[in-house]
């Protein structure tokens, strides 16, 4: 209540309080694993950052991995290209959001990204929460304790991972060592026009800051041959893509309906759709460009879909 107990702060509180909403720490503070801690599959607070080096392995899905679906910001501390340069994680502005679409996705966003503005966890310059405010706490208001009995996107609390308006099926342990039967189910749509957008897909969420890589005119094209790698487009049923029939946690696909966790999928249908996070993890990985695998060194993730390019 007073950011004080007995005249001092407790050791597990953040050190730069007092904080809005009378919280004991900020976003990064609460979601950072303390020394000797990591995600273990049962921790209630998901750790997206850690004091100690997390274990990612080759794809972030292996049996000893302790990062979650979004990966970790840990590597951003020393390698700028491995994650989003979120305020509180990094100390310096890194770069403008590549492919920033202005306010075309979300009228709350600026027409151009302010020079030097760092990405924030939530709010107008962030990913989580409402975007009609820069205040992270206001942006997240009511979400942590709200009714999250479903993830239909109708409220912030009911949005997938508190990403406002996004729909999806949340894995109970947030993809701690996921398998084909235990994973998030990401919402996606199959588009036949690159101008089409559907605000409840996970790729649309990414598009709010990287929209030129997701939609527009002559940004992707409407069909193959694509100008940029398509997202919110289903895998074709023919050729090399037809072999993607088992859900891959290495290069996952999204689906139009997210009521069930899909173990098998069918290319050419709306249960087998490419998303931004088919290749990337939102927070970061130990690999270049937040890739799910080390694409500077190998194509192990590419060939999950591009099966003839092994």
């Amino acid at each position, binding site marked *: 209540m007073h950011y004080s107990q007995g005249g001092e702060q407790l050791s597990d509180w953040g050190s730069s309080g007092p904080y809005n909403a009378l919280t004991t720490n900020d976003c990064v503070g609460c979601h950072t694993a303390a020394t000797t801690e990591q995600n273990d599959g049962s921790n209630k607070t998901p750790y997206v950052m850690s004091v100690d080096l997390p274990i990612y392995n080759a794809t972030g899905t292996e049996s000893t991995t302790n990062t979650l679906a979004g990966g970790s910001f840990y590597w951003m501390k020393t390698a700028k*290209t491995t994650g989003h340069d979120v305020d509180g994680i990094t100390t310096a502005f890194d*770069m*403008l959001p*590549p*492919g920033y679409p202005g306010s075309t996705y979300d009228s709350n966003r600026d027409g151009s990204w302010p020079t030097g503005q760092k990405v924030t966890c939530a709010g107008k310059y962030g990913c989580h929460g409402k975007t009609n405010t820069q205040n992270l706490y206001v942006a997240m208001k009511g979400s942590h304790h709200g009714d999250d009995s479903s993830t239909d996107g109708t409220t912030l609390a009911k949005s997938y991972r508190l990403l406002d308006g996004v729909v999806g099926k949340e894995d109970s342990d947030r993809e701690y060592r996921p398998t084909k039967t235990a994973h998030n189910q990401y919402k996606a749509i199959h588009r036949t026009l690159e101008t089409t957008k559907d605000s409840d897909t996970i790729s649309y969420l990414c598009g709010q800051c990287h929209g030129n*890589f997701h939609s527009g005119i*002559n*940004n*992707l*094209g409407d069909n193959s*041959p*694509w*100008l*940029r*790698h398509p997202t919110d487009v289903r895998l074709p049923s023919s050729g090399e893509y037809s072999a993607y029939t088992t859900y891959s946690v290495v290069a996952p696909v999204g689906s139009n309906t997210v009521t069930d966790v899909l173990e098998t999928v069918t290319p050419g249908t709306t249960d087998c759709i490419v998303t931004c996070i088919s*290749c990337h993890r939102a927070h970061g990985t130990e690999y*270049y*460009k937040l890739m799910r695998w080390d*694409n*500077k*060194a*190998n*194509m192990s993730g*590419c*060939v999950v879909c591009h099966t*003839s*390019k*092994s």
Partner: protein
Amino acid sequence: VNKVKKIFLGLITIMFLGSSLAYAGPYTDSAHGNTTYGVDRTSTSQYTQGLCAHCHEQHASIGGAEPAPNTLDAAGPDKFCLLANNFDTTVTAGPYAQDDNACFYCHYGLDTYQATAFDNYSYSRTFGGNSDTTPASIMEAFNLTSYHNLKDVIDWATDGWPGTFTATNNNPCSACHNVHIAQRSCGKPTGSYDPAKSAISRPSNHNNLWGDDDGLGDNPINERMDAYPNTYQSPYYYAVTPTKYEPANDATSNGTNLPNYAAFCLDCHVNAVEKGTTSLTAIDWTTSMTGDKHGQKAAGSEDSSHGELIAPYVNASSGIYALSCTDCHEPHGSSNEWLLRTEVNAKSGISITTTGVWYEFCTACHSVVLGGSGSHGGVEQSDSCSVSLCHKHGYEF
């Protein structure tokens, strides 16, 4: 018994380990996917050599900017997420500029975007042993006197195999090469020729390498020149005193180590090619009356007397030979007309400077006695060989 089981399990384990280590997919086995000499764009050097990102830009942006090349036909996002526009279809004839063809950004010569400059020499040099080092790049070859017209190639391929090629999307080079599986057939950098590696795919069968299979063992189809009807005799590999044969500069002379280029080229050239600036006679390599004598059609004894054969060809076998197209023609371009080679059957320095005057060329394989009562009495060295219905594809003689 337990000891035997352990040994057996050990052997099985070793066998599987070995097989996994030996496995590589078609792309990683390809020339472009090779980690030693594969694709390695200067502006994407953060990626390991051979990886997709050297040719494909997932977002036409890395760190907020498009990596070079990013001007002219390479500016902005391009189809197939390529580093540049695949082919500029407004270019109907050479000479070609680098940005006309995405492949030319690397297959260019000294100013290549490939991190380490490399040479792609002519067929005459690579497989024929010619000492001439020009052309030294693919683009340079296409800018010689005669060349496969790239616009006409992709248009023709699109007409012939619309399910595979689209003129406005695909690269003309892909009509003959599948870039994801094409291999370095000349064996570089070790310098050894490996007939099991092939750089070509028939336009009619784009996803299959052509020439790599010898019809033996697990390869039921023989894609080599020895499978072509009639006898194939390899021409000599260049030497002052030649004793070895194309394409490997070794003793093999029956085509068992050469892709069946006759079948390969005839995918297109079995038809008369009328496309854009190209007008070509249909090539008839069969035994029919209208067939070519350099193909399966038998050459009569009178033919030998008009142009006796030069070793390794022998008059006694005249009529049973069927040649490979590459025995006479370059695949990309030549300083001679009709893509005719500058070195044939160990005769180098062949320069055709006047249309149809092929004496220097033909005499690489035929003894032609000019004037008087010779086999070509009344004919001068400076005369055209292709006039008066004499020598030409589809003509009687």
